[in-house]
């Protein structure tokens, strides 16, 4: 790794590490009942602490995202001796990788020593697919509160994130000649990774025939361009680099983390007013630049990329925004087999991603990055030293995390 610039005085670079990862099983939507989401969170936290060789007595911080959960009740249940940090990145799923950066900031800032980032999800009564549907309607129990801004979109019938990202995908196709075959390559390669893993909800290979035979949900997206709807929880534990060296596993060092985005990316798909120059992007360009600078790496240094894959075209746009190919060139890039494991230049979502392993709002991607750097991944990238993890595309913030051995 060659630092791209001098290390600034204020930085997170290489001062913390992810030392433990844990998860519940993953279930199809609603099948985790009668467990509660908070119980799932507790199970994942305990598993992550145990993986690190730590216990509840060591835990003193929580770093959450996507509206999180009530840490007071979990701390009470688990008997955490003293909570010293409990905070959350704003926004939605875009904060997943950033929640680990938040944990690192808490540790570097001296506010806490052992911070857990956790996502728990139970989509039993409700579905994210109807996030922007009118409240009170059947199927829309999880819908966001109506807003004056939403009133400019909702009458069109755009009610779910997939429908909205489809609008970005359509324009990407128009501008750059991207095709459904390129989306299919993301879905099919991700599935190929998932089928080798016990934890995956999707264990059968996805064929081109099945992909192109699937029903269209929101053109140009078909069923297999959409992520799964799941229940489950994933937790990861961050502590100082000094403490990490004494723990059970080789540390996954946090080289850098960034979250945010250009202000006028803003509410993104829920306003569609993004400036023309980055309308057909993942909204990650500013975050990509910053996380690379902080970590002192360049795209060519990345051995494995765990890219937030709620909808397959958004993986393409992240490949562009993170500099693995030029803007508009992601279609041919994936068509050449570059994101495949094994053998691709940049294996992507070796764990099966949100599309085919489980959708725990991106936290499975962090877990996979850690396992890749430990050398214990099911679909191990040989000699992986640097892993990139992303959260979002979403409204601000989107986020990124660079981990290395």
């Amino acid at each position, binding site marked *: 790794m060659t630092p791209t610039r001098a290390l600034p005085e204020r930085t997170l670079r290489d001062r913390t590490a992810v030392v433990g990862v844990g998860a519940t099983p993953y279930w199809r939507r609603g099948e985790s009942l009668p467990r509660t989401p908070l119980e799932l969170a507790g199970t994942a936290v305990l598993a992550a602490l145990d993986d690190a060789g730590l216990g509840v007595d060591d835990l003193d911080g929580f770093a959450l995202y996507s509206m999180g959960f009530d840490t007071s009740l979990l701390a009470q249940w688990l008997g955490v001796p003293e909570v010293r940090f409990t905070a959350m990145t704003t926004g939605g799923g875009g904060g997943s990788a950033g929640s680990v950066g938040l944990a690192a900031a808490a540790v570097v800032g001296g506010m806490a020593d052992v911070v857990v980032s956790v996502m728990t999800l139970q989509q039993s009564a409700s579905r994210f697919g109807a996030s922007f549907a009118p409240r009170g309607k059947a199927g829309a129990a999880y819908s966001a509160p109506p807003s004056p801004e939403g009133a400019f979109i909702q009458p*069109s*019938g755009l009610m779910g994130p997939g429908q909205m990202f489809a609008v970005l995908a359509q*324009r990407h196709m128009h501008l750059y000649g991207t095709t459904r075959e390129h989306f299919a390559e993301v879905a099919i390669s991700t599935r190929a990774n998932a089928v080798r893993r016990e934890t995956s909800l999707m264990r059968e290979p996805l064929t081109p025939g099945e992909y192109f035979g699937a029903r269209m949900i929101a053109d140009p997206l078909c069923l297999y361009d959409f992520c799964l709807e799941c229940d489950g929880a994933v937790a990861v534990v961050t502590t100082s680099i000094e403490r990490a060296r004494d723990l059970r596993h080789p540390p996954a060092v946090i080289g850098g983390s960034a979250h945010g985005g250009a202000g*006028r990316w803003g509410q993104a798909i829920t306003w569609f007013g993004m400036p023309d120059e980055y309308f057909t992007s993942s909204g990650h360009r500013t975050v990509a630049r910053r996380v690379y600078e902080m970590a002192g790496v360049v795209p060519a240094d990345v051995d494995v990329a765990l890219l937030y894959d709620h909808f397959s075209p958004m993986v393409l746009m992240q490949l562009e925004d993170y500099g693995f190919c030029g803007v508009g060139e992601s279609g041919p890039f994936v068509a050449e087999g570059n994101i495949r494991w094994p053998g691709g230049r940049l294996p992507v979502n070796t764990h099966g991603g949100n599309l085919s392993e489980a959708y725990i709002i991106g936290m499975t991607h962090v877990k996979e990055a850690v396992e890749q750097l430990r050398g214990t991944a099911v679909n191990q990238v040989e000699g992986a030293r640097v892993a990139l993890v992303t959260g979002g595309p979403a409204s601000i913030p989107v986020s990124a995390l660079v981990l290395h051995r």
Partner: protein
Amino acid sequence: MSAEREEPTVRASGFGPPYPGVPPADVIRLTTNASTQPFWDAAAHHRLVVPRCTACGTFRMPPSPFCWHCRAQDVEWVEHDGRGEVYSFTVIRHAVIPDVRDALPFVACVVELPGTGGCRVIGDLVDVDPADARIGMAVELVWYDVRAGTSVPCFRPA
């Protein structure tokens, strides 16, 4: 401050979808605030208006309390004829809530309004075979009178 617009107690004749391919009226619920109310007041009279900063002339949509360019707050409401081009679109074929099932498919489109510095309006593209929808297609405004006092913009090929 926001308020749900009043629900009709009596559906006057003439309300409802102008064409197939738009959501039924009862799933359209507009919430407004002080910044956005003038847009919807004008829409109820079939006038498309876009707020323009009186300090620097920058248009902004949706209406908001600050100019993103110069941070001034005052606006003037400029009427637009609603002719523009499809910037992008999707054909919604799956009902995420049961209420919209019978009205599918919708062609939800983003239309850029010429002369507004890139402001965009979102509405359904109607009176068109979804297979014929294209980015760059010239469109014109058509109003969907949802209920008394509430109309929302749609577009059709110009």
